């Protein structure tokens, strides 16, 4: 692949998180019985007229601002004409040459490198209905069933400049885009439900800047599919070029099972859609004050948060990455740190046990979580006990203080008692003691673990460590002896 320049652009569709459709008051709930959230407007019945949903416009503006776009105070809706059963009116209301927003920019990390990609435009449009094809693929089906519940859900279409140079970069871009849109609160961005969808276009240039035809890839339903389809396609195009062939402009689809792209049809040129102004909707004229109002409610975005965590709290890139990618974890972290706790200590617990348990379901309030951390850091309970308590907090919503009192959790810091346990552990493993005495220092961890096990995790670990080192040093010639 060396010597070739790859250029990738993405076209992303995001379902906006409104309560109702873009041009009618039908609900947009996912998973309702088919055709139960439809009315004359979204079924395209004659005589019905669209009325624009203010919230759809607001969410689209939020998305555009979060992507550093310029909002056009004047934009227009058009009809894009094509025949397909999922499009009840036989045209889609969208925006063409006067879109809602243009000239955005998204910054993101590809590994450790900060990248940026231009957002060419963001516009509003309506979603199509859902076609359910009988049989395995579109081509093999006997008939098609159509559900118009989805028809008319507001979409923001986001188009990037074709400037990404690798499949991995395209994936990193899309992951960051999703995160930014989630932070902005404009969509749940669930690729598995189709509320975030991505098409890609890719060109492979034998020499930088050389003109070649563009191939589009559709049906990219996951980050992995995006990366793999682009990698497959780049290799395929290189093979065509190496054979002295020409890459044809076409639309291909990602076949997940076969793990390859397959040709869909010869690409239709724009004139075929016969765009013309939507006569039923006046131009969209926006008030600059409204846009500023929306801007003022945008939260801190992921990249800013990441920088702040590293600067203000001195967290590692790993910890900040985990926190920033999971806004609910970031929220718990900040609320817990806000009460003056050690950021690194809190981050360890949040990105470790808390994150793990939260993934399994449920949540624990920052207040209770803070109380638990205080008990651990003050030595009132051990870290091992803390893990158990946190599990119970997630499973049963218990208060940490009450639970610890109820269970009689205490830390064993009794030197005599621990001394006795240590002696038993060492007596039980004479060969290991000998190896330790001969210089295998790393065996200390094993002895600590045995003592913790013997005390059900209740021993104070720092004290165990200290006593063990002392006991073992007592004689590097320590000999097992009877009591």
């Amino acid at each position: 692949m060396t010597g070739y320049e790859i250029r990738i652009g993405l076209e992303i569709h995001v379902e906006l998180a409104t309560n109702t459709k873009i041009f009618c008051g039908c609900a947009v709930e996912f998973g309702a019985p088919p055709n139960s959230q439809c009315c004359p407007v979204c079924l395209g019945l004659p005589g019905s007229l669209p009325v624009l949903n203010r919230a759809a416009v607001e969410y689209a503006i939020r998305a555009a601002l979060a992507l550093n776009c310029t909002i056009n105070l004047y934009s227009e809706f058009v009809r894009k004409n094509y025949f397909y059963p999922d499009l009840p009116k036989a045209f889609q209301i969208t925006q063409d040459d006067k879109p809602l927003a243009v000239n955005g920019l998204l910054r993101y990390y590809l590994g450790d490198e900060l990248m940026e990609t231009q957002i060419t435009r963001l516009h509003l449009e309506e979603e199509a209905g859902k076609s359910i094809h009988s049989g395995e693929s579109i081509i093999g089906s006997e008939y098609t069933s159509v559900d118009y519940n989805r028809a008319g859900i507001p979409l923001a279409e986001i188009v990037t400049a074709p400037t990404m140079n690798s499949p991995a970069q395209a994936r990193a871009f899309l992951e960051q885009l999703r995160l930014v849109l989630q932070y902005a609160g404009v969509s749940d961005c669930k690729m598995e439900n189709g509320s975030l969808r991505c098409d890609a276009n890719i060109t492979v240039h034998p020499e930088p800047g050389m003109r070649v035809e563009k191939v589009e890839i559709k049906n990219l339903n996951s980050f992995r599919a995006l990366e793999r389809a682009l990698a497959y396609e780049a290799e395929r195009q290189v093979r065509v070029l190496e054979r002295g062939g020409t890459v044809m402009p076409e639309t291909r689809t990602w076949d997940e099972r076969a793990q390859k792209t397959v040709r869909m049809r010869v690409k239709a040129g724009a004139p075929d859609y016969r765009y013309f102004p939507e006569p039923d909707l006046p131009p969209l004229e926006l008030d600059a004050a409204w846009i500023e109002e929306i801007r003022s409610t945008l939260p801190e975005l992921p990249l800013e948060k990441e920088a702040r965590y590293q600067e203000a709290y001195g967290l590692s890139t790993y910890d900040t990455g985990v926190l920033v990618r999971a806004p609910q974890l970031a929220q718990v972290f900040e609320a817990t740190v806000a009460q003056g706790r050690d950021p690194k200590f809190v981050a360890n617990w949040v990105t470790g046990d808390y994150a793990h348990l939260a993934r399994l379901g449920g949540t624990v309030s920052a207040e209770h979580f803070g109380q638990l951390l205080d008990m651990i850091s003050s030595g009132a309970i051990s870290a091992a006990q803390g893990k158990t308590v946190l599990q119970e907090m997630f499973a049963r919503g218990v208060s940490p203080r009450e639970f610890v009192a109820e269970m009689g959790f205490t830390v064993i810091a009794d030197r005599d008692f621990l001394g006795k346990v240590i002696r038993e552990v060492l007596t039980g493993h004479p060969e290991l003691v000998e190896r330790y005495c001969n210089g295998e220092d790393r065996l200390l961890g094993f002895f600590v673990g045995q003592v913790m096990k013997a005390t059900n995790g209740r021993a104070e670990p720092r004290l165990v460590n200290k006593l063990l080192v002392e006991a073992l040093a007592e004689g590097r010639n320590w000999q097992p002896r009877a009591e």
Partner: protein
Amino acid sequence: MISRAEVVRMAELAMLELNEVEIALYQADLNRFLQSGAELRKVNTQEVRLSSHVGRASSRMREDVIQRSLPQEKALRNGPCVVDGCFRVPRVMEDVR
């Protein structure tokens, strides 16, 4: 002037099957539309701003409040073939988008 080939192409895009008589008919009709349009060229529009819409209505928007949808059976009433709550149509050979 609109050619016969252009009429055929438009019919294709609109998924209309036209016979020779109809092609001739629509070719003549469409050309009459164009002639009417050409009349407008006589009007001096130098001072007139380009616009896409009639009138100056500004965007009226509705609040994001759920309204009752049609009952499913009513939504499906006009479907020539309805199965399991869905409109059923002949199979789609290719994604034409």
